[in-house]
């Protein structure tokens, strides 16, 4: 089995699962309980919080646990908008955001907010000048995806942060879900106020994520109740999931330090081979793109057909982001980059993990070539 769909979700590391099971069995108490068992569970959360903070180079107090990336993004966007709506009603984002950002912004539109969606170049990057020009007196928030989930393009977060430093009243949110452990990002150095992360994208478990909220910054909660997470996120903490997330981030960060060159190499091998195929158009930019994501189209072949054909060789890739792959819409990221609609309908995304090898890469390429041949032949036969 070759799993090349790591941007959709990753296989949890063995150690991560072990941590989860151990904590679930041995430290099951409610962290809010006053007895010793509750104290132990609370201690584990604190430990995990410290470890995560250290790995992310932030303070423990800046971590707010959530149920995942979607919740973190919703909390960042709506929590900021609700808290600071008296300052202004303008938000800046981009045309290539994850649906959890886009849909949250669209909801705010219905509540009197104005949204500027910055366009991107054919390389999937925003233009800094356009960002500067779109800033208004009423702008309260800029929200930007660091590494795009579909094509892997990287936004100039540091430059954006630099510009926004001149506007202390504009909050800067970054969706770092695809970037974490693949493309390093120092939140404080980049002037980031809010940052979203999801555990299952780095071999942690589904249902766990966090939102970084810069110390001193307050936003409105989306869920109210028992006042956990300093009243920003109520609900009994998923202790075992949180511990497992810390473990996953530690292991993935260690792997990144050692094995990122391998990932870059695997991607390079695939790119070099794909370039040789006339029918293939590569959408992922060669510069400023994440090491683990590669998006391309095989002209004339519907994405789903290729995905299923590869599956017969036990190779798993995807059409577009998993969150919207059930609805048959064309990738808004590719359209935003100016890709022709017909070509966009053929888009395939390969997304790597640290575990993928060059041997796997060559197998995938071979399978792709065979698929093109086989399907090409049937297509021709059908025409005849």
């Amino acid at each position: 089995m070759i799993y090349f769909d790591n941007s959709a979700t990753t296989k949890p590391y063995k150690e991560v699962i072990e941590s989860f099971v151990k904590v679930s069995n041995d430290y099951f108490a409610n962290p809010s309980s006053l007895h010793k068992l509750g104290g132990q569970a609370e201690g584990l959360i604190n430990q995990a919080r410290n470890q995560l903070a250290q790995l992310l180079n932030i303070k423990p107090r800046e971590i707010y646990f959530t149920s995942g990336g979607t919740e973190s993004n919703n909390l960042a966007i709506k929590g900021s908008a609700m808290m600071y709506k008296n300052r202004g009603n303008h938000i800046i984002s981009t045309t290539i955001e994850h649906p959890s950002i886009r849909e949250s912004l669209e909801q705010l539109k219905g509540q009197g907010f104005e949204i500027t969606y910055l366009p991107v170049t054919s390389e999937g990057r925003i233009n800094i000048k356009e960002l500067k020009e779109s800033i208004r007196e009423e702008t309260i928030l800029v929200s930007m995806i660091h590494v795009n989930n579909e094509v892997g393009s990287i936004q100039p977060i540091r430059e954006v942060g630099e510009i926004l430093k001149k506007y202390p009243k504009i909050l800067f949110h970054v969706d770092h879900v695809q970037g974490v452990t693949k493309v390093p990002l120092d939140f404080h150095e980049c002037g980031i106020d809010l940052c979203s992360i999801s555990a299952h994208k780095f071999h942690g478990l589904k249902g766990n994520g966090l939102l970084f909220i810069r110390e001193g910054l307050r936003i409105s909660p989306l869920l109210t109740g028992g006042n956990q997470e300093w009243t920003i996120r109520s609900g009994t903490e998923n202790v075992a999931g949180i511990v497992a997330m810390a473990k996953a981030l530690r292991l993935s960060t260690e792997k990144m330090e050692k094995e990122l060159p391998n990932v870059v190499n695997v991607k390079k091998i695939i790119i070099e081979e794909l370039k040789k195929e006339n029918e293939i158009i590569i959408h992922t930019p060669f510069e400023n793109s994440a090491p683990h994501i590669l998006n391309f189209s095989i002209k004339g072949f519907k994405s789903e057909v290729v995905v299923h054909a590869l599956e017969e060789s036990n190779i798993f890739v995807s059409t577009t982001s998993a969150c919207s792959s059930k609805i048959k819409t064309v990738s808004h990221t590719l359209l935003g980059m100016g890709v022709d609609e017909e070509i966009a309908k053929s888009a395939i995304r390969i997304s790597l993990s640290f575990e993928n090898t060059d041997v796997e890469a060559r197998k995938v390429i071979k399978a792709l070539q065979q698929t093109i041949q086989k399907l090409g032949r049937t297509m021709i036969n059908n025409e005849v």
Partner: protein
Amino acid sequence: MEKIYVDHAATSPIHPSVAEVMLEVMKNTFGNPSSIHSYGRQARRVIDESRVIFANSIGAKPTEVIMTSGGTEADNFAIVGIAESYQHQGKHVITSQIEHHAVLHTCQQLEKRGYEVTYLAVDENGQVSLSELKAALRDDTILVSIMYGNNEVGTIQPIKEIAEVLKESKAFFHTDAVQAYGIIPIDVNDLGIDLMSVSAHKLNGPKGIGYLYAREGVLLAPRFFGGEQERKRRPGTENVAAIAGFKQAVLIAQENTLEKQKQYINFKNMFIKHLEESSVLFHQNGSLENSLPHVLNLSFPGTDVEAMLVNLDLVGIAASSGSACTAGSIDPSHVLVAMHGKDSERIRNSIRFSFGLYNTESQIIHIANEVAKIVKRLTKV
């Protein structure tokens, strides 16, 4: 020293077979359910199958079950979701003074947004009055949220009768059944419930998963926006392993519900009998009738809740002052205040014992004996 856990209403240990099911899913069914390849489809199947189990467990349809990250989210979703969707019909909500904070704080949020909320009082057993509910109902009431069984004292509300009262009103009926689900069989149609919140970790399932039942046709403005999951009502990659674990927990809970009920009621009776025999002065908050079988809340005159809990903890007994969710602090319980008034001694000397998996008769006797010793020590002049 044997450690005894009698705080199952705060959270409960994961059942071994739940852990097994989750382990299997985490290892082998790790795909994203939205992926179109076999890993995705396999994960999707786990969710679909679980949803049927959840629906069947309450007599609902699978499409009426919306997975959430737990009870707090389900409560928030039900209340704000209805409030936003039906504000054109009115902005009045009725709830009770003894709800969980996930309901109370969310209602307070609504008040800040221009909604009116009536907080029904309760009697000294913790029950709302149907006639007060009737009197509070208005033309612009859009939601009534009354919990099924109280988490601190165990009092069960007259759910079916409340639904009966609401039949002539256009208000929807939401119940927070987080403490009751898995302990008491619930049929939403028989009871006339429109929305119901439940959470897995109260019935030996994992933390971080729950669901909201929402009757077909009920409009619910979502709390989260994003992907197409849960038919657009709750986006976010599904927590597949937790859903599978929750399903397993529900199946186990359904296995011998009545036997477990009997066992817990027996625990309660034994506990009380032993305390009486050791001639310790105590009162029960709430009553043995109309009460969750697994929750027993006792007041010990002349003691102090913090001293009691510390002493119990020292002899290996994990009990609680009431709701665990007041994040570490012992604020006077709003439930006991509602039942007995803010000047009552009971709000400072009451302990909640809640039973569950692994508790035995001999443990209960042991606890009663230890409690008697501690109370005598603390009240010795």
